[in-house]
């Protein structure tokens, strides 16, 4: 006789893929490491201190929230770590440590847990945290540091320390090409937020995510291509082909576009699930980003454009359902109806 005491009866299927929420989030963290490394090399170890502090704040906030509300702890899924890293990537290196820590607590508690935790929030928590900090401490949020400035690990940074510098985006806003070369922008040797400056490091991370099938190419491609096409077609200050080209590349490679398109707009919870919907979402983000950069009061529009598109996700999904197997083509259906 065989020992059947452990046998359980459940509904099929009885095998599951290896990837789970935790491993997907871990992959996102891994994909963010090249950008973090570039940041540490460019701006010093303060980058690392800020990132680690924000991650700890986010994880602790989620753990405490679960504790207080008598919920099973959800920090094991590592989504709070991703939020922490992304939030830290969105502040200048000169920021005091307490600022992203408070931002992280806001992101986790207000933008995520109060809506029901992972999967239920309608806005990207990291971007909500960034918007909150932008509204609260706009001065600190736009104090850019010169590349190679010798910043303290922890202590506060004064304006003179930071040796404030104009970011490529700020120059673009005035309608002129930035001083930084394309290569400098690729390698992150410009002023800007902690993790957003090196387009190349972010692209490497994106390639890793695509290889691991964590994300699909739809949203980043739609987003970046939209920005590229519009900025090429309508360069500020207008000029010949070479100028247009340089203008377009500067727009695409500077600011938070790469970070936003690859890591923030692709956030599962706050992006559409159908492939048509993802393309529409990406194009919408791209259009809004260029509008804000060209006509808005701020130099950067990536975070607000993604936040605006976040609110439209369910609507986009609803009107872009795929044609189901065994049903007539949508165009045919319309014709038949007529």
């Amino acid at each position: 006789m065989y020992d059947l005491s452990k046998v359980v009866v459940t509904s099929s299927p009885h095998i599951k893929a290896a990837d789970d929420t935790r491993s997907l989030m871990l992959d996102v963290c891994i994909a963010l490491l090249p950008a973090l490394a570039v940041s540490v090399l460019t701006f010093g170890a303060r980058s690392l201190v800020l990132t680690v502090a924000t991650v700890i704040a986010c994880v602790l906030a989620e753990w405490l929230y679960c504790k207080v509300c008598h919920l099973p702890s959800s920090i094991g899924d590592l989504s709070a770590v991703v939020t922490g890293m992304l939030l830290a990537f969105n502040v200048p290196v000169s920021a005091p440590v307490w600022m992203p820590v408070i931002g992280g607590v806001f992101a986790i508690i207000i933008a995520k847990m109060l809506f029901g935790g992972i999967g239920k929030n309608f806005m990207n928590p990291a971007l909500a945290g960034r918007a909150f900090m932008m509204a609260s401490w706009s001065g600190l949020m736009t104090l850019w540091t010169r590349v190679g400035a010798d910043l303290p690990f922890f202590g506060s940074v004064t304006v003179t320390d930071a040796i404030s510098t104009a970011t490529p985006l700020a120059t673009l806003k005035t309608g002129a090409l930035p001083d930084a070369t394309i290569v400098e922008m690729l390698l992150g040797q410009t002023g800007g937020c902690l993790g957003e400056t090196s387009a190349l490091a972010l692209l490497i991370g994106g390639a890793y995510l695509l290889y691991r099938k964590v994300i699909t190419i739809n949203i980043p491609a739609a987003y970046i291509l939209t920005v590229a096409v519009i900025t090429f077609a309508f360069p500020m200050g207008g000029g010949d082909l070479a100028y247009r080209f340089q203008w377009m590349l500067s727009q695409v490679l500077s600011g938070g576009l790469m970070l936003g398109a690859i890591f923030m707009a692709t956030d599962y919870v706050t992006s559409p699930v159908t492939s048509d919907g993802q393309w529409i979402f990406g194009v919408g983000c791209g259009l809004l980003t260029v509008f804000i950069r060209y006509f808005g009061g701020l130099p950067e529009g990536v975070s607000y454009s993604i936040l605006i598109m976040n609110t439209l996700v369910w609507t986009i999904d609803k009107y872009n359902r795929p044609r189901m197997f065994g049903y007539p083509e949508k165009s045919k259906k319309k014709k038949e109806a007529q």
Partner: protein
Amino acid sequence: MVYTFRGGIHPGPHSDPGFKAATNTKPIEVMPAPEQVILPVSMHIGAPAKPIVAKGDIVDMGQMIAEAGGFVSAPVHATVSGKVIAVEPRLHPNGSKVMSIVIENDGEDRLHESVHPYDFASMTNDERINLIWTAGMVGHGGATFPTHVKIKGAIGTVDTVIVNAAECEPYITSDHRLLLERPEEVVGGLKMLCDIIGAKQGIIGIELNKENAFAKLEELIKDDDRLKLYPLKCKYPQGAEKQLINACTGREVPSGKLPADAGCAVFNVDTTGAIYRRFTTGMPVVRRVVTVSGSAVADPKNLEARIGTPIVKLIDACGGLKEAPNKLLMGGPMMGNAQFSLDIPVMKGTNAFLCFSGEEDKRVEDPKCIRCGKCIAACPMHLLPMYMNVYGKLGDLDECVKVGMMDCIECGSCAYVCPARIPLVAQFRLSKGQITAKRMAAKAAAEAKAKAEAAAAEAKK
């Protein structure tokens, strides 16, 4: 050219795609007939068969012991010779007790007089179909739809017969071994099916992981212009009827319709072989090949067993269990049914029996959807499993239907890829049941109303 469909999944590690390595090189081993066989009268979809023997009767191998209970039904035959020792409800793989005929084997395998070769060429179509019906033929892939009904429905409407040699379910290799070891039966059966149905083409749709069977099959089909071999991409659920038809012919079976509406009829490898054997030897369905595998099985094998053999005998023949199992499955891991006993018999649709001792099913407490959309990319029916789950949980049945609930084939691809481990298929079964119940209630209400109105009109007169 390799054919396939859109969607689907690739179960198993790169080193062992489909978990088939444990048995795909092991030849079919013929099991000795057991001392007792248990033959439930329901081994098919449709009306149960009616027992025509009583306790104490002596029966021969191949003798009909239960007759079809209607047109959509299949008879049952004695799979050994011996004495009927019980006609009583016994445990059935569906979890309940079902009327079964238990035969004590006398070890003689004395053949019944009806078991003799038939001359296919000289028979009329009605005689041929009747011979298939009286053989108790059903779909051996697990769905167990009576074969004669499928054939009858196909005549005049179907131009393409497809043999489903995809065998996309992980772990299972019984069809693979049949194609390797007895390809002439499969090809012979396909020719007969094409003749009966009058089909223009007969396709063998076979996944690339069975490439070692291609050469022999191509050799066998080359003298018949109708027959073709279609290599298919290794992907689950390549062998699902609608996906297989789509891959082989490019046609889509319309929603809510049958394969015949797309001009196709699909038959299982083992069923096709059984049809061939019925005409060449006269033997009805009395045995089948079962893959016994899984992490708890000591020595996984492909076994040919008499229908009605208790599963525990198959486990014994595989060296027993090396660990206490936590899952027993009749059929594959994607669509098979979980069992709680080993005393159930091998049935006509039992292509595999799996015993797992590890964490294969990875269940979690309180799973949370992260809207990753992997279920949508995996769905071979191009539905929205994520939203089906949301609306199903909310009880919004109208919206459920709009996002495809009733088109779901329950293949489990969505639940397999779900990183949150949400039991999606379980929810869909529940919601489908609710939708069906609601529709039936609405229909009954409408009928009652019509009746009442008619009665009222009558009263007025």
